[in-house]
């Protein structure tokens, strides 16, 4: 039991850390951090041991906070998070993802930034917004947010990103050029239901078996790709709703994925007031509801796009946070659940870090 498990929680009112050991039975809470700023994503870079929190203040604009001591002290910066004086104003940071020695930030309105100095300063990855479809990008209810950053596991030149109400893009040249990767993904809210862009991807994740297998929870279904997003196959069948926000993949089994279906369109809470995580062990061909330990009566909770994560322990842990401030966890791959923390602000993101004691 030499490692600590840190469940990293971004909320509407700051960042929190819920901490336990590898048994994952007893938890303690620290926070709120980041001056209680709205934090859309709290993440960890195992290469440097740094926590990064992306968010935005209605007063002071976008920021990435960083802590090099696992949350004891924090500093913030937004230097370079701008499209220039003639460009649109950046409202917030939605995602911070470390990859290949750099740090990436997805922002609203949608764009990608890169930091080579650990989040002190930022440079716009201009190629994405130079895509000819950019002028057609329109915000969804959650804004025009770049919410998913999926690095290639070994090649720093390759990356996928996903933008709400726009779709998935892929770059093979370090972000200089990008191509849409939405073929086969339905946009049920548009006259042309299979456009080049305009798909409302809610969360994009990569499976651990190589760069080609991707999954996404979309506004209009759940999808799997085995060719790096060049084509997608819908795998919604068997779920109680095609709508949901988060998606996660088992850390070693590429065919095991998790979603949390929500009732569309206005409700966006779990169906019938019963909380369930749905797991597939066969890459989305079949789905099973996981309910043990989760509220099964009068629980009208939502779970947002960044708010589910898995750890990498031998028996993987799964965690999710609700829009009403509950944090649930499973130490057995979703078979049973317990409440790790309650009465938090609305949870916007959940990630997991394993650190040496």
């Amino acid at each position: 039991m030499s490692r600590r498990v840190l469940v990293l929680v971004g909320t509407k009112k700051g960042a929190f850390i819920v901490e336990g050991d590898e048994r994952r039975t007893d938890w303690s809470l620290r926070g709120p951090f980041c001056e209680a700023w709205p934090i859309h994503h709290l993440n960890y870079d195992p290469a440097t041991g740094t926590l990064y929190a992306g968010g935005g203040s209605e007063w002071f604009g976008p920021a990435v906070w960083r802590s090099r001591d696992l949350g004891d002290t924090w500093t913030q910066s937004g230097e370079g998070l701008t499209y220039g004086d003639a460009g649109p104003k950046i409202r917030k940071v939605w995602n911070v993802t470390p990859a290949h020695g750099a740090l990436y930030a997805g922002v609203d309105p949608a764009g990608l930034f890169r930091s080579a100095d650990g989040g002190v300063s930022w440079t716009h990855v201009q190629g994405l917004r130079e895509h000819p479809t950019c002028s057609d990008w329109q915000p969804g209810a959650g804004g025009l947010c770049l919410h998913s950053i999926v690095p290639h596991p070994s090649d720093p030149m390759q990356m996928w990103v996903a933008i709400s109400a726009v779709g998935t893009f892929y770059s093979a040249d370090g972000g200089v050029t990008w191509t849409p990767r939405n073929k086969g993904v339905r946009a049920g809210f548009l006259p042309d239901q299979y456009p080049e862009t305009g798909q409302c991807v809610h969360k994009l994740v990569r499976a651990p078996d190589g760069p080609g297998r991707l999954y996404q929870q979309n506004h209009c279904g759940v999808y799997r790709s085995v060719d790096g997003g060049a084509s997608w196959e819908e795998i919604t069948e068997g779920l109680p709703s095609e709508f949901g926000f988060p998606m996660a993949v088992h850390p070693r089994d590429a065919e095991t994925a998790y979603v949390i279906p929500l009732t569309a369109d206005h409700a966006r809470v779990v169906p019938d007031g019963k909380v369930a995580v749905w797991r597939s062990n066969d890459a989305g061909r079949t789905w099973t509801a996981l309910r043990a330990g989760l509220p099964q009566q009068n629980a009208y909770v939502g779970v947002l796009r960044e708010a589910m994560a898995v750890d990498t322990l031998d028996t993987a842990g799964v965690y999710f946070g609700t829009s009403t401030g509950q944090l649930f966890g499973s130490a057995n791959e979703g078979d049973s659940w317990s409440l790790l923390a309650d009465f938090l602000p609305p949870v916007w993101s959940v990630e997991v870090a394993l650190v040496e004691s």
Partner: protein
Amino acid sequence: MALAYLPRSLVSLFPGMPGRIQVEAASVSELIDWLDYEWPGARFRLCDAGPVIREHINIFVDGEKSTLSTALRPDSEVYILTAVAGG
């Protein structure tokens, strides 16, 4: 020198930044430049692309709501305020 009052929510972002400062500056923009020199990043927190004062930051000079180009007198009193907000 102009006397400027800074909001607590700004001061808390920059170690050592006081809540009240005296600055020799000819305009609001110069005042913010001075803040940014002393506490790098302060301008980004107060100004947005344009450049303009951020939408929900209000700067009053001698009782009047100002812009970046508003002139300061040696005895000006400046209040940098965060807009009231809910939620």
